[in-house]
């Protein structure tokens, strides 16, 4: 993968465009404008100030020196038990909020809401020398005060109509929510439904919408039927953890957090049931992405990239996905072998105990029994290590394989936007040719119509071009943000994994140190 310094900054749209764009947006779909520019404005305007374009560097300490929030997304993923009292002890999204020291500015720390949109429409323009580095630093300023946790899986109903309901608890000081802490009950299809809604939104095109965990017919059937065996328990825990990570990723995304569907998901007591989730069954998500990719690949007109950033990045993403898949398969194998080791160790421990019983030398007999106990403890250690392997390592990889699929999806969306633009251009061309022909044929009514159509298509071309540029910008920003998050995520998970290993090793040492005197006592 190329280092970030290799990237060329995107050709930034000219300064008047965002305004025009904004008013266009405002005309067409106020939702869109709100989503895009509120997102932009959050980090930027907080410190830069609305009414003072020259106040860009007014608060350097705030903007550039404030340290990144310390807690990356940590996952309470079944390794530690959920403590109902402090639900948020382990589930944290970004913590710090920027406090602007602007004396004359509004209270900018209260973020978002439709009313702030118009006051920030200057900001992109005032962002003039916005290099990629500054874009990156803006991302660093993303700060949200939202904690979400998914807990308490409970079976509702009986038989094949039964389902698991999960408690989704939110704690936030953001004004857009009705209260500071609240919780709702949601089922798996609700999560899928949320994804469904988000993924079709035009306004979110170019955004990396986190994909939900996959459906599993086998797993769920066992749960429905009421089997209480350890594998069902593990299945439910795995799903709960995956849903939690999913929703945490959603709320940590600045645009998505603003989305009314997300808010509804978190707040509304009775959510209408999502019905169109069949497409997302099993490996459905990735299948969907791949189908879309194929459609794009079949495009006859190849896009002429003015800058290679997109091509290079796409290649990187594909490579990385390959690597992760390979790694995931290996970690899966590791988990299985460790589970085997557990089984074999348990069996061996029993055998040792029997041997100890047979042994007629008392001290040796006791030592062998002790050895059997140590091996029993080792089995437990292996069990925990296997859980750690799985929940920390394997699930991380699985998540990112799906996320990379989503990233690829964004690139495809951009391509399709480009396609639409090109098609509009060629249609416009045809209309113009038709007009020319009509001029010669001298048919005034048809000419008028042709002129109207041309105007319409000119507008469309402009619109689609702007869409394309906008998506391009979004994709860039999203990818940057994604890479940051990914690095943080991996780092924190690997550290967690190593720490679990450390603990396990220390306990191992204790067990054998306790055994040693027994062995020495043999006479």
């Amino acid at each position, binding site marked *: *993968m190329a*280092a*970030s310094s290799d990237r060329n900054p995107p050709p930034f749209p000219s300064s008047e465009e965002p305004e025009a764009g904004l008013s266009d947006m405002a005309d067409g779909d106020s939702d869109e404008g709100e989503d895009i520019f509120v997102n932009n404005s959050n980090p930027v305007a907080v410190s830069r100030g609305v009414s003072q374009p020259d106040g860009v560097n007014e608060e350097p300490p705030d903007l550039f020196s404030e340290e*990144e929030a310390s807690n990356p997304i940590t996952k309470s993923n079944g390794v530690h038990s959920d403590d109902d009292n402090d639900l948020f002890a382990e589930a944290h999204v970004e913590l710090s909020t920027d406090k602007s020291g602007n004396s004359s500015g509004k209270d900018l720390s209260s973020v978002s809401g439709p009313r702030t949109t118009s006051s920030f429409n200057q900001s992109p323009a005032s962002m003039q020398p916005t290099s990629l580095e500054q874009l990156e630093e803006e991302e660093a300023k993303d700060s949200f005060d939202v904690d979400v946790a998914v807990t308490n899986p409970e079976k509702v109903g009986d038989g094949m109509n039964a389902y698991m309901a999960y408690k989704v608890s939110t704690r936030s000081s953001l004004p857009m929510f009705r209260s500071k802490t609240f919780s709702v009950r949601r089922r798996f299809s609700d999560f899928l439904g949320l994804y469904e809604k988000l993924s079709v939104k035009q306004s979110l095109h170019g955004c990396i919408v986190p994909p939900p965990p996959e459906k599993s017919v086998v797993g769920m059937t066992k749960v429905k039927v009421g089997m209480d065996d350890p594998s069902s328990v593990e299945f439910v825990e795995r799903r709960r953890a995956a849903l939690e990570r999913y929703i945490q990723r959603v709320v940590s995304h600045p645009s998505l957090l603003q989305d009314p569907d997300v808010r509804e998901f978190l707040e509304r007591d009775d959510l209408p049931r999502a019905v169109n989730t069949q497409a997302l069954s099993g490996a459905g998500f990735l299948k969907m992405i791949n189908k879309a990719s194929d459609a794009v690949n079949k495009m006859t007109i190849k896009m002429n990239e003015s800058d290679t950033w997109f091509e290079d990045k796409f290649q990187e993403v594909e490579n*990385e996905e390959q*690597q992760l898949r*390979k*790694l995931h398969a*290996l*970690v899966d*194998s*590791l988990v299985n*072998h*460790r589970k*085997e*080791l557990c089984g*074999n*160790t348990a*069996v*061996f421990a029993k*055998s*040792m105990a*029997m*041997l100890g019983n*047979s*042994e*007629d*030398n008392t*001290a*040796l007999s006791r*030592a*062998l029994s002790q*050895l059997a106990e140590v091996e029993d403890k080792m089995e437990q250690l292996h069990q925990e290590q296997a859980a750690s392997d799985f929940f920390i390592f394997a699930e991380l990889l699985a998540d990112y394989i799906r996320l990379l699929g989503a990233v690829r999806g964004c690139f495809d969306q951009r391509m399709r936007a480009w396609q639409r633009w090109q098609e509009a251009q060629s249609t416009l061309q045809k209309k113009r040719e038709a007009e020319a022909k009509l001029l010669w044929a001298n048919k005034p009514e048809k000419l008028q119509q042709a002129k109207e159509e041309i105007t319409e298509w000119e507008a469309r071309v402009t619109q689609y071009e702007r869409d394309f540029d906008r998506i391009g910008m979004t994709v860039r920003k999203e990818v940057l943000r994604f*890479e*940051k998050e*990914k*690095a*943080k995520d*991996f*780092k924190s998970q*690997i*550290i967690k994994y*190593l*720490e679990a*290993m*450390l603990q396990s*090793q*220390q306990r*191992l*040492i204790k067990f*054998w*140190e306790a*055994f*040693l005197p027994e*062995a*020495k006592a*043999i*006479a």
Partner: protein
Amino acid sequence: MRSVSVDLNNDASLLIDIPDALCERDKVKFTVHTKTTLSTFQKPEFSVPRQHEDFIWLHDTLVETEDYAGLIIPPAPPKPDFESPREKMHKLGEGEATMTKEEYAKMKQELEAEYLAVFKKTVQVHEIFLQRLSSHPMLSKDRNFQIFLEYDQDLSVRRKNAKEMFGGFFKNMVKSADEVLISGIKEVDDFFEQEKTFLLDYYSKIKDSTAKAEKMTRSHKNIADDYIHISATLNSISADDSTKVEGRVASDQELKLTELLRYYMRDIQAAKDLLYRRARALADYENSNKALDKARLKSKDIPQAEEHQQQCLHKFDKLSESGKRELTGFKGRRVVAFRKNLIEMAELEIKHAKVSNIMTGSHAERYSYFGTWSGDIYFN
């Protein structure tokens, strides 16, 4: 590496070791080196090349020797088995194209280590066999043993002759009939009654434990291999080192625990063989009693029958006496060996865990200092 039995090479009058060995395809050639102060040998120090089959010949001739019927003959060393690493090497060669250079190199390294471990193990086992003999008051004086140590020509001619002479008859009988015979005979002596019960029970338990220990260490090896593949893909330091530690833990446990169990399983079989021989002698004695009674009834051939009976009794008594000595010694030996091995195993576990603990700790520390600028370090 005298890890399995107690220190055997103590008596300076006859010191034996296998300082090196060659592996040619299937065959392993051991160099048996002897240092002695005994006048029965021609030279004070000498070395001869020997194959595995020579060891088997020596073992079998000892077993077939009547005079040693009352002794526990040290179990024959098992045939060198390079099947597992060889198969893996083969698979590795086939899969070379699908791996990165680094992964291949690492796997190759692991395999070579495994090969080496098997090699060391087989040398050790053959060495211990000889040392058991040299430290036994009676067996060390055996003529064939001396020939084995000294004869600088190829032993294969002798081996063929021996096969023709004995035909492995006795050995085969022992293998198939001992359980029945031993449990069938009514025991007159408390000591042997107890020993019989104990050994039969212990044997089945230790056989079970050996099998389970082998499975466990195989799982460990699988995990070590997984870590190699993972680290190759991940290219991260911590996974690298844990590979070595996991691999080493697996091979150390293999050497210590599994080998201990395996060895004593075989030794107990040898002890059972002794019991069998004694049981047979007892049966012979009982039969000779019956024959004597019959002869007395018929008043025919009484002196022969009497003599035969006396011989059987004498043989049985001799066996019982030496058997008791052997079995008591065996008990003590076993306890000491277990003690030594268990201590060494525990110490090794602690040592390795501490080492890997330090390494894991330092890696965790290093990772926590990595900035959030890139996840690229993980993927190359």
